[in-house]
């Protein structure tokens, strides 16, 4: 069984993790055609080589990002999601007067 480097918990057995698929930040939906949205939802590159993936350490509920070489199945680097998603994402105007 593989060992996966978790930025929070260190090297742990692969069976403690769930892969969340390629990191693919959500595009601005209002700018996308139906076909482009379907592309975003259903299609993945499935690249042979370096990929950037979401991984969840299940016991601690911790999502992080790992860079993995799919040819050698080696984890090259893993880091907290905040490295890629640093700021609060605005997703459309807030309704005025609420909150």
């Amino acid at each position: 069984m593989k060992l996966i480097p978790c930025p929070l918990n260190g090297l742990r057995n692969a069976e403690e993790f769930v892969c969340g698929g390629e990191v693919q930040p959500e595009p601005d939906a209002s700018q996308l055609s139906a076909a482009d949205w379907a592309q975003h939802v259903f299609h993945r590159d499935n690249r042979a080589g370096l990929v950037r993936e979401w991984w969840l350490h299940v016991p601690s509920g911790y999502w992080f990002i790992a860079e993995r070489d799919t040819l050698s199945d080696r984890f090259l680097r893993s880091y907290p999601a905040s490295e890629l998603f640093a700021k609060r994402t605005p997703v459309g105007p807030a309704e005025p007067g609420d909150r």
Partner: protein
Amino acid sequence: MNRLPEPFGCLIDRSRPVRFRFDGLAYTGLAGDSIASALAANGVRVLSSSFKHRRPRGIYSAAGHEAGVLVQVNQEPSVAADERAIAEGMTVSRHHKGGRWIERFDRFLPVGFYYRAFFRPAFGWRLWEPIIRRRVGHGRVDPGFAGGEHDKLHLHADVAVVGGGPAGLAAALAAAETGAEVVLLHRRPRLGGGLLWGRPDAAGQHGGDLAAQLGAAVLAEPRIRILTAATVTGCFADRWLSAVQGARLIKLRARALVLASGQREQPAVFRNNDLPGVMLGSAAQRLIRLHGVKPGRRAVVATANDAGYGVALDLEEAGVELAGILDLRPGHPPGDLRQAAAHRGLPILQGRAPVAAEGRDAVQAVLHAGLDEAGGERGRLAADLLCLSVGGTPAAELAVQAGATLAYDPDVAGFRLTGLPEGVFAAGAVDRRFTAQAAEADGKAAGREAARAAGFVPQPMHRPTATAATPNHPFPIFPHPEGKDYVDFDHDVTVADVANALTDGFEHIELLKRYTTLAMGPSQGRLSALNAARLLARARNLPVAAVGAPNPRPPFGEECFGHLAGRGHHPVRRSALHPAHQARGAKFMPAGLWLRPAYYGSDAEVAVRAEVMAVHHDVGLIDVSTLGGFDIRGPDAPEFVERFHTGSFRKLAPGRCRYGLVCDVAGSLIDDGMVCRLAPEHFYVTATTGAADGIYRSMLWWQAQWRLDVDITNLTSALAGISVAGPKARDLLAPLTRDLDVSAAGLPFVGIREGHIADIPVRALRTGFVGEVAFELHVPAGMALALWEMLLTAGERLGVRPFGVEAQRILRLQKGHIIIGQDTDANTTPAEAGLALAVAMAKPYFVGRRALEIRAGQPLERRLVGFTLADPLAAPPSECHLVVRQGDIVGRVTSVAHSPVLNQTIGLAYVAPDQAEPGIAFTIKVRAGRLLNAVVTKPPFYDPAGARQA
């Protein structure tokens, strides 16, 4: 008896006879014997019939490397007779008896025969398959086999050492000296490896002294954990080993790994090279030294190295007459052992090779010929034993699984290990350090390197150089025009079969393997891969290095299903109320990972009906602890809930709940639950039992990207839940609370309050799932049992009754509430499920919004509707029965039940969009193709105005 006196037989205990049966006859062996050695001591040479040609087979490696020693032991098939120790009363039998007539037709049974002969006509295979299946296979599975006790052991080590020979023992010691925690795994019952049976020098100085010395040192070292009789069956990513030890499967993670698995002697190929009595030189030595068994009376040794002379000397010492030593090498090769053999006057025939063995059930004579162009004249030596010492191959299965490559090296006329991955080291004979001294020194160096890789600081040390001389003959293959020259013993693959495969175009080693099934048998090519590569290379006129070796796959050695299953743990989650349910005779059902009461009592129909009626007329209690519960807190809590759920919650007042839906990015329904606002910045969100874990993961995943100022806490296990439902629910709760106003005005429908019931802190939700007045009480799990008992006691005068999931399903169906996953599938949109009102498309964003927008522009394909039967007395359909229209499938029944209070069958089904109006009749195809008429009926079926749950 062929039993030798002491000092032969270091493993056996002559004072402890062991009686067993083989093929119906009684035999006696000694403690420490394998099945095969005990039978050999009794003069039994034939252990099995071969897989295809039904040829007699006996001991070949005496080390568990071939299918020919597989026997049935009691109810257990495919047991290696040369590995399994005999036990008192054991019943051993051969897998097949008779059928040898087929061997006469072997020329009509080339490789691929079954594929080519039986695949046409198409119905033919059904005729042939049972006949063929009866004839093949390794043993019989007994369907009545009760199984045994198996378990699993998880171990961690700084350094794991595989192999307990001189290299492995030295490696374990050297690694432990640096402070590393070491696990040493050895396949045999006693440490020592080749030291226990090999002949290291001419004087016959037994390696046992070194074995004893190293073994004692290892035993005395507290940092070494020794596992003997433990076969490492696989080496997986990041130095993760699986090993089988008796009935136990060991999983071992090591920081560094030393593979000291030794080398494995390889056979020569010639006519009848499979006859009982033909065996590897090492096999004869193992029988003599380990088990004190004389392997024959008159022997021929065929050798291509000095070690073969050690075999001859050992045989002579054991009282076996030497008919001749066939030395495949030309000239007068040097060697201490050869010199000793010559000195003792043993008959050496230089430059000669065995080209055929004679005999029907065992060897009677060996034909030999010269190896030069002319071949020289044939010779014939009468013998009942032929020992082969023509070379070896690294026992490198684990190294290859770890990522190393076996590359053919013409200089050594064999495979060499290259490209070991990080943290994996090879030592000893597996990497060409053959002598005991070289192996020990190599093990020491490898042990230190492994310790370094594991983070310790050893003294540096250089590896000894690999032995320059090779034990291998480059081509010990002597094809015979009449065949029976076996390359692979497991599946009876001959030289001609390999040639046929090439003619048929299967030229790659892996294609050759699949076509001929060579190296695909139980031994995975342990005795055939090298010779197959040589044959293939010669036929294709390529260097062997260009051909390579077929891939040996795990498991190495037997793993039975019991090993994989372990103790058969099926972990389930039990709610805090589980003991109370048991005490009341609950029948449990799985729900997600949980066990939930289906109903209470022995008669399902009676119990469910009584439970449903209790909720309608009095008051019922149901354990809803399995629901997911999440606290969402912080300034961005409203924003998070707005993004995650489809509905609109910004204007939800504190103290109120609202039904919430969750969609995925494709706009499909994945869950529903209650979204409750406890405070302006504090929401409590519930999820369904099966989806709770997934919803939590999904919440965390989105939050990892959104980075809202919010904190998400999973309270699923921390809180238990009891739903108090029925017209007398308020009567039950009111006397038990001081700070909760449970009146309709104080806690109205879809309200939430925090307070105490009988001093137990609760979150009380007024929900409507079962259609009567209901309070969902979410309480700390540790207090739930006390609350449950208190409610039952206090409610006795009101007719309180616990109810299970079955009753709840009927109650919710009466109200037309869907169950996600039962009434929906991976494509269901809120619109199809009739839940469009719970989707706030006016919101700028929520998960799945864009997809729902797109899907809203596409024609609706189906609608989920309520239905009743046209004939109320008709037998009800089952869930998943199809809704059909003019022969086409348009939908299916998702839920159906008989409502006791309405006294009719009600259900939910998908129908075509134009069939969705109430009153429209549609057709359900039920059992045996019969058609049933149903009528679309608008839910709720019961109390449509909701007056009873207010």
